[in-house]
């Protein structure tokens, strides 16, 4: 369990975990072109806890997809953990997602037919880890999120907060360079929200790099840094405390 507390060794000042340069994304809908991102540049250093905020249509989902290697930019460059992923093949992108990114989704996205530990172990299966080691590491990750006694439960037998913690364990299990959370508290009540956000705080304290997409102000306030998007451009990039103090509305 100790490995999850310390996380990967931070490489301060040498290499950002993710680095976007003038990233644009244009969607083509018939003859209509829609620019979702119009030149976003962003660096996230190891151990940072960054919240990306913005109203609907600001491009934050698109940015999340590109950061998560689920989509590729139309132009510009994107380096993740030192690798240029802007022009990778679909197979290489799948490998990068498996190796370097831990996803936490709003809908939890757990497979209902599988037990908690099987869900957590899924990324390890795609990484080619053997079954016995998968179980061991999945149980350790579940222990890390406080669900050591729920390893054999199926998602349907867990509360929303517990399900999201299983999802966090799944994001942790491969020890990725980046944990990418997309509205992780959007489907949770206030108690569970606090629970999950405390978990992110702990991960941050343990030295992990977290990028969290949200439209909720108090969620963003927990992060060390807030990046605001509007109409496909970064309009503000400042420490969370400063934003709150300045009273900038989302």
């Amino acid at each position, binding site marked *: 369990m100790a490995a999850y507390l310390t996380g990967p060794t931070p490489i301060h000042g040498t290499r950002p975990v993710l680095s976007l340069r003038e990233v644009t994304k244009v969607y083509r809908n018939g003859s209509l072109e829609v620019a979702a991102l119009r030149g976003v540049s962003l660096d996230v250093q190891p151990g940072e806890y960054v919240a990306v905020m913005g109203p609907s249509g600001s491009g934050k989902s698109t940015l999340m997809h590109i950061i998560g290697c*689920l989509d590729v930019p139309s132009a510009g460059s994107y380096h993740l953990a030192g690798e240029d992923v802007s022009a990778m093949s*679909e197979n290489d992108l799948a490998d990068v997602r498996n190796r370097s990114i831990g996803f936490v989704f709003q809908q939890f996205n757990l497979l209902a*037919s599988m037990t908690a530990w099987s869900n957590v172990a899924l990324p390890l299966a795609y990484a080619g880890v053997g079954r016995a080691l998968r179980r061991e590491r999945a149980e350790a990750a579940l222990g890390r999120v406080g669900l050591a006694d729920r390893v054999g439960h199926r998602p349907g037998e867990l509360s929303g907060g517990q399900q999201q913690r299983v999802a966090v364990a*799944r994001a942790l299990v491969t020890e990725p360079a980046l944990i990418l959370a997309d509205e992780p508290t959007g489907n949770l009540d206030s108690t569970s929200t606090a629970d999950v956000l405390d978990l992110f705080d702990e991960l941050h304290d343990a030295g992990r790099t977290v990028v969290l997409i949200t439209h909720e102000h108090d969620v963003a306030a927990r992060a060390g840094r807030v990046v605001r998007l509007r109409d496909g451009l970064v309009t503000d990039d400042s420490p969370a405390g400063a934003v709150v103090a300045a009273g900038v509305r989302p």
Partner: protein
Amino acid sequence: MTWFDTLRTALEAMGTHRMRSALTVLGILIGIAAVILTVGLGIGAQQQVTAQVEALGTNLLIISPGSTTSTTGLRGGFGSASTLTQADAAALASAVVAPDIAAVAPSTSSSQSLVAGASNWTTSVVGTTPSWLSVRARTMSAGTFLTAADQASAASVAVLGATTAQELFGSTDVVGQTVTIAGTPYTVQGVLAPSGSTGSTNNDDTAVIPLSTAQQRVSGGSSRTTVQTIYVQATSQAALPSAYQEANNELLALHGITNATAADFTITNQASLVTTAASVSKTLTVLLAGVAAISLLVGGIGVMNIMLVSVTERIREIGLRKALGARPALIRRQFLIEASLLGLTGGLIGAAVGIAGAKILPSLISNPVALSMPAIFGSITVALAIGLVFGVYPASRAAQLAPIDALRSE
């Protein structure tokens, strides 16, 4: 992710949708069982026909007279003429003239009423010579067959088939009894062992008397010297073609016919009977198997349909698996294995149902069903292949889904 992991995932997916999987499997199952049963019925029918024709006698040639044409130009049917005589049969029996002919049995046959005490029974009365027994591959169950002495003296003796004996006397233990045919009493001196049926003819419903006796007492007029059929036994299977030639040449010469196409007799052999009968049953088998194959195809389309539904329903799952690092090829493999499993399960259960049906069916419809191992293993393989082939399209669709679209769907 290993093959074993993928297999486990596919089994889990099948288990999650038990009803749907079961119905899909049912489509394949019915097709496979139908193929196994129809092929089994076809092979069974062919074996039955072959066995029946072989029951006629081994290495047999059957010589029948040609047709007659009346003064009004009306042509009688096949065998209506009386062009074959006992002299013909005697000539064919000569080892010098026809070295490939082992035995010859001239025979006449007519339907007669047999009377024994208070019971009577109409059956086919055959007049023939002692060699008939071996030529027709028959055996005796009791008493003795006709002898050369019976033939020479035109004795009033008869040999009964098992069915005839049963019908007349209520038993087959009838040696020494008397039966009246066309007003003449005959002494029963033997009973033929049962040999079953050939087509619609019951070989056990017959009475055999010496040819000389039949010509003098049963038939009359020109029938006193002519015979209806000459059964010829070749010395071996290989000798059948030469026996055929020898019989044909000898009869043409005896009848003074120079143009072979104008022959007043016809020679048929077992092989041609088997071929004719087999081709009929083969046509039927192909037809039935074709229908079964179509049902299998429909089952395959069922697999594709269900797999497409499955891909659509599990679009989020596919997106998630991709987000977690599953390559497109792996997603394709997962759905292909799932489709193949549906096919294979249908194939295995279908084969079991087909085999069970093959055991039960003969008792219901009296047709034999022959289980063919190539058909069973072939159809299981086909079921697997159908799952695989019809799984390709849905699996490719799953593999090609963009992860963001898949994750976004509700």
